């Protein structure tokens, strides 16, 4: 299947490297996941990518679960585990190390400067995620309205996101979207 050899190693290498560049968390890395899974490696179609994003949002837990689904699509249960651990372990180890370092050296100015510098970039990355996913998902006027309405509702209220996902699913099932 995979010209590079074992797909598990490809997953580990791909997501291990990606995690180190995932400033702003998993949602900020979605464009890169899309680029690799759809455009570069042809693991799945555009539509399937939008589907697994929806499934990952429907599952409780951290946003990183989209990686588990990509891994499953590539190499089954072993792929799911390999991709998840590759995305989570290196940066968790880094966080453990840096946290110990900062704890010992007292207060440093650097975290606040780096954070201030990274915030606009990670928002830009997340906006790019939204744009890329919307290009696949929002193919009708109703779909665009649904996305915009969810965005406004989630922005303005503290309603549990689960209800909005459920409403989307029901409207989809009814054939409205």
């Amino acid at each position: 299947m995979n010209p590079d050899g074992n797909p598990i190693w490809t997953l580990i290498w791909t997501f291990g490297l990606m995690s180190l560049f995932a400033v702003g968390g998993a949602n900020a890395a979605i464009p890169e996941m899309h680029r690799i899974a759809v455009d570069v490696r042809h693991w799945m179609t555009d539509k399937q990518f939008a589907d697994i994003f929806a499934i990952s949002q429907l599952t409780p837990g951290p946003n990183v679960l989209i990686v588990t689904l990509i891994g499953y699509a590539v190499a089954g249960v072993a792929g799911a585990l390999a991709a998840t651990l590759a995305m989570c372990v290196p940066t968790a180890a880094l966080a453990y190390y840096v946290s110990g370092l900062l704890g010992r050296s007292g207060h440093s100015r650097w975290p606040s400067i780096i954070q201030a510098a990274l915030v606009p970039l990670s928002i830009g990355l997340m906006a790019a995620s939204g744009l890329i996913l919307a290009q696949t998902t929002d193919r009708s006027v109703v779909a665009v309205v649904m996305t915009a309405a969810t965005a406004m509702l989630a922005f303005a209220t503290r309603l549990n996101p689960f209800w909005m996902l459920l409403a989307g699913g029901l409207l989809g099932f009814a054939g409205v979207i």
Partner: protein
Amino acid sequence: MPLDSPPAAVPEPDLSTSVIRSPPGLLELFLAFAKMSLAGFGGVLYWARRGIVDQHRWMTADEFNETYALCHFLPGPNIVNLSMVFGSRIRGIAGGVAAFAGLLAPPTAIVTMLAALYARYGEIDALRRILAGVSCAAVGLLMATVLRMMTPLLKRRDVIGLVLLVAVLVAIGVARLPLQAVLLVAIPTSLAVTIYMRRRISS
């Protein structure tokens, strides 16, 4: 606790009222993070704060914010980093692993089952329609997060921040350039600008 409890009340043992709660054990850490994780649709941060600060009182709000800020500036899934840092501050590396496993194991198991169902039934028409509807809402939720995070930049009229934001959006979202290449340019640029602006303000 009120100091003058009515006499009918059961007398509290001396230690339990005022002493800071003893640090949780490994199993307790695992279960607490599993619970937060399974409560969190569309992100676990809200539930993590609620569990750690309000419910268990394992950290004050300030300690939590400080820990989260550290995990947010580091790369990778923020809340996963948080579980590792929090767990290891309480119980060393074993505590970190327990919290990490609690956060990830249950949802990974659930999502793997869903993946198997999708692989098998993904082409059924009703399921396709449901997923199309859910996707629309899910993209809306993501955009709401973007709006929420942008609000402070807009309020501060942070023009440079907004320009950087749009530049990254176009490079990644429209030109579809590789993440590494974009960040290797964007991070040094943003750092240089941030340091320059801070120096100018302080001098």
